[in-house]
């Protein structure tokens, strides 16, 4: 039996095609993954992301305690800001990647992946000991909505006139009535386009979903499913847990050292001096079928790794994706590398980041 989003009835009424994602029945699309992708790049797309975790951490010692456990430097995170981080195991492998929202000096809202909620809460609870820290797992009873796309600010400004969205910078957040248990609106997202994420209770969330879809801002707003969420994040060069991240790779190997605090980064680099195997981003240089998980990557005649995620970019139609490779590679080199698809090789290039 799948878990259902609190917005499940709305999705059915909107004609969603569903997929199973980490035990949740969630919309894959509402008719066309490609169109939903383009709505985000050109206007606004609305995603139900209520399958993602919702863990509240508070208490006098919560900041220092959490800073010991998460990879990014929490001292750099001001109140009413969010940042990307990781929970790591003893070997530096990623238990999950997550977003940390600092609602108050000593109140944090942590959003792990749907697949990671169990492991993250179990690990955190096991580390509380006698610290003055409270953890509340509200996963499943929070409605989480992502409003993504270049016109998302105009849309939200019409729906929430009391907030000045032009002053909300990337990664800033607002508590709608100023209390840490109220609706959270943050300028965060995982599509590579400008956008916001809103977290609220079930009743308010259902009403908000309808209000966002039927707003009178004049901004075109379309519902989008997990299919386009995946192609959007691949274009943007964002990893997906289970594909590019797992317990046997460190964030350094995943190419995400930027999100690791300085001290921890230095020690992780020392532990794995050559950082191999590692995750790299690529672009196929010829017209080719979509790169898919498991396709092999070659340097000359030698297989050096496999695709972990890929697609044809709906924006540029190029094959793009991530691969796990076991060799030192050079970026922007168009002669040496290729991907094997069905019965032939197509040349490819490794890039520093996503194409959007």
């Amino acid at each position: 039996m799948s878990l259902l989003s609190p917005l499940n009835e709305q999705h059915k009424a909107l004609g969603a095609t569903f997929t199973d994602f980490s035990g949740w029945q969630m919309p894959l699309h509402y008719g066309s993954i490609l169109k939903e992708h383009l709505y985000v790049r050109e206007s606004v797309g609305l995603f139900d992301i209520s399958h993602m975790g919702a863990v509240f951490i508070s208490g006098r010692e919560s900041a220092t305690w959490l800073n010991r456990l998460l990879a990014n430097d929490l001292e750099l995170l001001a109140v009413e800001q969010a940042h990307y981080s990781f929970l790591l195991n003893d070997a530096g492998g990623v238990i999950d990647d997550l977003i940390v929202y600092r609602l108050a000096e000593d109140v944090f809202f942590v959003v792990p992946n749907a697949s990671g909620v169990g492991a993250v809460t179990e690990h955190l609870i096991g580390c509380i000991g006698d610290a003055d820290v409270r953890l509340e797992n509200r996963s499943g009873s929070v409605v989480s909505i992502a409003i993504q796309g270049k016109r998302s600010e105009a849309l939200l400004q019409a729906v929430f006139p009391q907030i000045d969205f032009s002053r909300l910078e990337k990664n800033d957040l607002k508590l709608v009535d100023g209390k840490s248990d109220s609706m959270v609106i943050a300028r965060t997202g995982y599509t590579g386009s400008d956008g916001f994420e809103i977290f609220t209770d079930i009743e308010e969330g259902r009403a908000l979903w309808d209000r966002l879809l039927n707003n009178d801002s004049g901004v075109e707003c379309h519902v989008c499913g997990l299919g386009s969420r995946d192609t959007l994040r691949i274009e943007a060069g964002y990893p997906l847990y289970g594909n590019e991240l797992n317990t046997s790779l460190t964030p350094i190997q995943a190419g995400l050292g930027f999100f690791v605090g300085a001290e921890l980064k230095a020690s992780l680099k020392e532990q794995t001096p050559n950082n191999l195997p590692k995750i790299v981003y690529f672009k196929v240089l010829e017209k080719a079928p979509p790169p898919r998980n498991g396709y092999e990557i070659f340097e000359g005649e030698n297989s050096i790794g496999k695709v972990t995620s890929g697609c044809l970019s709906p924006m540029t139609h190029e094959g793009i994706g991530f691969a796990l490779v076991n060799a030192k590679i050079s970026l922007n080199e168009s002669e040496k590398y290729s991907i094997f698809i069905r019965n032939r090789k197509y040349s490819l290039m490794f890039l520093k980041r996503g194409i959007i």
Partner: protein
Amino acid sequence: MSEFENLKYAKTHEWVSREGDLITVGISDHAQELLGDIVFIELPEIGRVVENNEPMAVIESVKAASDIYAPLAGTIEAVNESLESEPTIVNSSPYEDGWLFKIRLAANVDDGHLVDYETYQKDYVE
């Protein structure tokens, strides 16, 4: 009766339109809907000899790659080249502009395994 109701169907969701010993092949509306947005189509080479039920083309949607089978034996006579730049034509017009290829049939082919529209709907579309 509209055109697609006069076509023959394979259980693997290809439709077949026959004129003498030349057939035109595409996929059913049901198949294109199941696949979703089609992003890439690999068509066979003209002149290739194919057996009945041989996989000889690939249709790729955002999520998956699916083989297309020759519904009857023969030689590939033409392919729909416009699909190379615009594969979504198969989504928007599966029975007309979205045809895939034409096969000149081998001698004495038996098309008894192909079914009419009503049977296809009843037996292979849920």
